[in-house]
């Protein structure tokens, strides 16, 4: 019987987002996305480029947090300036956790509620979302799947672009928009439905499709091959433990629940 936690299952699901990407910069922002990208590089997609989450390209993913005697293995350089050049050239697949996501895949990291001039909550700003979303592959991470994240209408401040036709005027090039997957604490989704509609690909153990639908502010589809999200293997768990020696992954989901939900 596996001892895996839900966070570990999500790390493995996140890692799958980069499978087969080849030589692109894998940018996992936050604990689970970063561990997912690291796991991808160490297992199925070793060609991925990755940074030390600061300025240098590393040939081996570095562990999270204080790392004792561990010496990063640098293979190159990736200042913010270079990251922008990479973004605009399109050879990147990022995974970030936006505050809001809508049915068109548009994302928000700026302000929520109230008016734009006097918002209820100011967050960070649009950051790099407009540039990332219109230039390269992106996946999304949601540790708290609910209708406050997956909103009924449009997100409050469209920061990252999506597939809403009315937003794309004649002459605007949509060809590089490439939304891949959304990994949440309930399921894994993609944009494979008609007109890029969001579908559930896999449900985490013990989660029902109805539960996902109830926690989502818009209708979702079930992928034809809807299945259960795979549990981490022992090999994957060992790699995750090595990459995250301080167990920062235990802080991602409240109370760090197990991957297999206890029977209600």
């Amino acid at each position: 019987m596996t001892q895996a936690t839900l966070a570990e299952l999500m790390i493995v699901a996140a890692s799958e987002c980069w499978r087969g990407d080849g030589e692109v910069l894998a940018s996992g922002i936050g604990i689970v996305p970063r561990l997912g990208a690291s796991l991808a590089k160490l297992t199925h997609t070793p060609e991925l480029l990755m940074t030390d989450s600061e300025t240098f390209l590393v040939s081996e993913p570095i562990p999270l947090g204080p790392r004792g005697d561990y010496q990063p293995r640098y293979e190159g350089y990736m200042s913010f300036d270079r990251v922008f050049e990479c973004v605009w050239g399109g050879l990147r697949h990022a995974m970030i956790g936006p505050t809001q996501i809508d049915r068109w895949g548009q994302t928000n990291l700026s302000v929520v509620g109230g008016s734009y001039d006097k918002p209820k909550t100011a967050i960070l700003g649009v950051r790099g979302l407009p540039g990332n979303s219109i230039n390269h592959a992106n996946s999304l991470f949601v540790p708290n799947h609910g209708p406050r994240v997956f909103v009924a209408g449009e997100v409050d401040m469209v920061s990252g672009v999506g597939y809403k036709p009315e937003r794309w005027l004649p002459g605007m090039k949509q060809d590089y928009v490439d939304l891949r997957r959304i990994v949440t604490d309930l399921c894994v989704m993609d944009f494979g439905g008609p007109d890029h509609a969001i579908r559930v690909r896999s449900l985490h153990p013990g989660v029902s499709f109805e539960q996902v639908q109830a926690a989502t502010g818009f209708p979702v589809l079930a992928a034809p091959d809807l299945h259960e999200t795979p549990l981490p293997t022992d090999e994957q768990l060992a790699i995750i433990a090595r990459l995250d020696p301080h167990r920062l992954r235990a802080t991602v989901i409240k109370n760090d629940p197990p991957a297999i939900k206890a029977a209600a």
Partner: protein
Amino acid sequence: MALNKQRSAAEVVAQLRSGMTIGIGGWGPRRKPMTLVRELLRSDIRDLTVVSYGGPEVGMLCAAGKVRKLVYGFVTMDAIPLEPYFRKAREAGQIEVMELDEGMFEWGLRAAGMRMSFLPTRVGLATDVLARNPQIKTITSPYDDGEVYVAMPALKLDAALLHVNDADRWGNTLITAHDPLFDNLFARAADACYVSCERLHDKLELDAATARFNLFERYLVRGVVHAPGGAHPTYNSPDYGWDMDHLKRYNASATEEGGWARYVADYVDVSEAQYQEKAGGLARITQLKPPVF
């Protein structure tokens, strides 16, 4: 006759005026010219348009009521993601904003440095950045592709404030940080660029390898301020790390009654020497460990 651009922080701030557009170098909690910002906080200058990859300096300038308009892509302290005084000002509708993608921001600085009115980019299309900034227009490619781009307007600066690792009295500078960020573009976009530095030299005499850390020309630099520890409490790679204890105290002050007034009394309405003493002394500042990511 040898050039001598050395100035005090007060002399630099005396060159600034209310209503100016001021660019601040660095990125979030990294390499912010905090000695110069503190001097600005002490002044009666106001109604500024601040252009920044924002960190705590934006929150402080907002809290002090110095900001009329903010041009930004984000304001954050990284390890403390939400900048408390920026949030307050933003949520109170106290500041006008021009919110941009990080790359559009870079493009605006580049355009200004190249003396262009705009540079084209795909970034910003199909987002609310355009909806919320109706002054930003699109442009159609004159070539066969006919593609529609954002015409990112130049972000012209009256002055730029930067913090560098080394400088000399001529205005030569070295940024030896692992990431030079976009300080070179701020220098080019500004009518007048002022730098503070950890180490001031009479005249830099460099070997070829070190000379590569000189990222913009001295003709861009109007004044040089010797300010060891001058990025505190932000991260000044490779010299010292950020002061998380200080940033936490600053962050906590925003939720305390009279918190900003107390922060000002403790850390702004004092001399820079007193500031550093309260921060544990220059020896402590310069030994702050770089963050591990």
